[in-house]
């Protein structure tokens, strides 16, 4: 058997690492909670079971990716997911401090950086239009309690 260890499926290894990491984090998070026993389960019983299964499945996937050929991870384009995520976080940071209009304008501007086709005037236009429309729909229409302007 020439089962040399080498990356044969980066998608399997990647998913395995992620899943095992989440499982391990889960085990760590419930470490101080009471396990109980089968007839009277404590709060940690089921989470521990699920987290342990996650770790096991994650390790299995990593192993499979090292031994068997399988799908590879496509190119990770950091820009689109990065910009969309950042836009969301910025929206969260600004909506209560500076109001809906600023938050929406910021969201649209940052998100547009994640798209391959963009023009400044169009982004500005879309941002203003969406800020006005969402103010009318959500704040005036559905009375979401949030301020509009700083």
């Amino acid at each position, binding site marked *: 058997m020439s089962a040399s260890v080498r990356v044969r499926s980066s998608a399997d290894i990647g998913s395995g690492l992620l899943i095992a990491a989440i499982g391990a984090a889960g085990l760590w998070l419930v470490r101080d909670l009471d396990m109980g026993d089968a007839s009277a389960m404590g709060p940690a019983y089921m989470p521990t079971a699920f987290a342990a299964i996650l770790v096991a*499945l994650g390790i299995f996937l990593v192993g499979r990716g090292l031994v068997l050929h399988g799908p590879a991870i496509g190119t990770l384009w950091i820009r689109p997911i990065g910009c969309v995520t950042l836009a969301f976080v910025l929206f969260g940071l600004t909506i209560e401090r500076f109001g809906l209009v600023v938050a929406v304008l910021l969201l649209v501007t940052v998100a547009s950086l994640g798209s391959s086709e963009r023009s400044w005037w169009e982004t500005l236009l879309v941002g203003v239009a969406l800020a006005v429309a969402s103010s009318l729909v959500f704040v005036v229409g559905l009375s979401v309690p949030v301020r509009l302007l700083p």
Partner: protein
Amino acid sequence: MDLLANVALGASVAITPTNLALCLLGCLLGTLIGILPGLGPIATISLLLPVTYSMPPVSALIMLAGIYYGAQYGGSTTAILVNLPGEASSVMTALDGYKLAQKGRAGEALFVAAAGSFIAGCFGTLVIVLGGPPLAEMASRFASPEYFSLMVLGLFTAVVLANGSIVKAVAMMVLGLFLGLVGNDVNSGQPRMTMGFPQLSDGISFVSIALGLFGIAEVARNLEAGIKQGQLINQITTLWPSRETLRAMVKPVARGSVLGSILGVLPGGGVTVASFAAYALEKRVAKQPSRFGNGAIEGVAAPESANNAAAQTSFIPLLTLGIPSSAVMAVMVGAMTMHGIVPGPMVIEKQPELFWGLIISMFIGNVMLVFINLPMIGMWVRFLRVPYRLLFQIILVVSAIGIYSVNNTTFEVYVTAVFGVLGYLFHKFECEPAPLLLGFVIGPLLEENFRRSLIISGGDAMVFFERPISLILILIGVGLAAAVALPAVRKKREEAFQEEAG
């Protein structure tokens, strides 16, 4: 007649100006998101949950359900006219539908899709009417062990029917089950896995997970792929089908309706599997299978019927057993819980107006959808011309404000962002996130019933094997798991999903 009285009750609920209007609104929204690729029913329904908060529960459910089955209609339009499936369940429709459109028969294909959807939608709803009450009657005698076994069976089935790697489907499911337990423990009140965030004491917000995994991640992927939209829309000449077309669609629609109804009830089955299976079946029974892929009318009629039938019957496990069978139904659980309804066998008995009102609204909605989709097709085609660079901004802004307004906290906006990144990674790792959402909703139910069963039995796991119904459910589950392990079945399963790529 009991049934007539129930139907009359349902009609009195569904046929009020408000509920008719909301049904129409749901169907219109459903058609719209069905037509637009990159926006699916899971994200849309999650997004609208907070908006429905002030409505009466039945009105909210009528509208949200309309979005779901409406999307099945809309998805076919994009598949036929642009060769892009508006929804995953329209992938098969695109194969022959687009070929028909290229031959100048776009109108006919649209007619067949809409008519097939209508017949199948009504058939599926009829299945709920006839099958729902007896099933609920049976389920009302279930105790914790039966519920636990039923959920285990459901999770097994969902894994078997999931797309792609089985191990990854199991992992996603378990991850969902795990995430579902985040928050205060029901029995002891102790916070679990909250990492010190008081906002997590009631658990991770369902809307955040659904929108992150299915909304945000999808937007990022579409941006990455550079979806543009707005080109090469086939022209529609006439909507009226020829006599041969009408004759050719009868049997595929009938077969698709039956097959779709069955697959819709199965956990993890749902609309996408139904449309694949119906297409495969037609190809098998056809005299000249080679016509498929080159504009066979059956290739449009069967999958479109199947996905609509399945969209309706997938409500059966939700409304009678209280267990969601698919990710979309998991969202509906979220909707019901938000309105203080506990999904389960008691719904039919204790809130008949809710059950029957929803069912009757489905008949009405299906009629509305035929008119929305056929005579008004020109209007919807125009939406296909909206470029994605505008569309995704609208999706993001509505999502962000929607998430914020669930509890008026920014915390959930950040949680959504986290799940957006996770959803993107899962996609790159070829992990389908639908089982995660299913697991997330079932997790707390599973734990509660498992705990309760073992308290009754004093910690003896035999309780699940000593009770006959529970034993049967477990045996079916084990049988399924064993079947998947068999090489022959495994090959078949892989073949079935291969068709998707083709």
